[in-house]
């Protein structure tokens, strides 16, 4: 198989598989809202001045009502324990 053929066979095969790559990327980071009470420990976006830590990613327990993550607008209230205001 000559070199060029290797490339066209591989890419052709890839395209033929018709993979739909997950386009659920964060293409639009606009239109986000802060959602309190849903962050996993260590995965919060930023700290409130009431919580016991000083930095994003430092939440020490799950669903701390004093930590938030940014979520697309309108989704926070659909999430269990999610609150648009800090408790």
């Amino acid at each position: 198989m000559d070199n060029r053929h290797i490339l066209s066979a591989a890419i052709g095969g890839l395209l033929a598989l018709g993979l739909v790559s997950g386009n659920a990327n964060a293409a639009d980071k606009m239109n986000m809202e802060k959602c309190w009470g849903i962050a996993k420990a260590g995965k919060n976006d930023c700290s409130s001045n009431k919580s016991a830590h000083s930095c994003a990613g430092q939440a020490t327990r799950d669903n701390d009502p004093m930590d938030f993550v940014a979520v697309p607008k309108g989704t926070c209230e659909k999430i269990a324990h999610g609150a648009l205001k800090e408790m």
Partner: protein
Amino acid sequence: MLENFARAIRGEGLLPDNQVICPNYSAESAVGVYRNNYRGNLRGALAIAYPVIQKIVGQNFFAMMAKKFIENHPSHSGNLHRYGAAFGDFICALEPGLPYLADVARLEWACHLAYYAQDADPLDLARLAQVVPEQYESLRLPVHPSCGIVKSRYPITAIWHAHQPGMPADFRINLDDGPTIALVSREEDEVRVRALQEADALWLHSIRAGIPLGVATFSTLECYPNFDLQAALLNLLPVLTA
């Protein structure tokens, strides 16, 4: 003044009392309060970046390592997520009796970087379909900013997976399983770690260096005649971008 303050916080000097405006405490104890918070923040940052290391060595030993590390590595950024890059090298020099520990730490740092790396659009197959085959050779495929590769003499991928939350405590890993190349990526906002074949790793290394698809593929085939480009593309699709 700031330089003095930084030195005092690191415990390398004292501030004269008249430089601390604090009626109820001596300069020494006021700086001590600040220093404790500073160290506590850095220790917290390390614990967040290196959960597997902490799980392997236990909290007490981890705290001791963190204390030593913090003493010798001042924070250089206002962003605590950037703190701790050298922890793997530090562990390596410490020789804690677990030969794989330093490489596991390097893998965890790659995961940490991956988590906070910038977003990039995934490779658009519809656009790839429009490229004429004559141009495949000169295609350059950008690699996602979250992509990291860590090589080790030890099975660090298996060790990392065995220490993830929710994994059973009874596992068996043979340290002689041979070298590993760990690929770190972020997919759907989740950091993933998997083992990479040598040929795929070499190819990805070239692609990431901006080498066109043709040269990257043919030079990989020279070293690894069994290299399967289509399998590699499929396997590495999540780390390729538009």
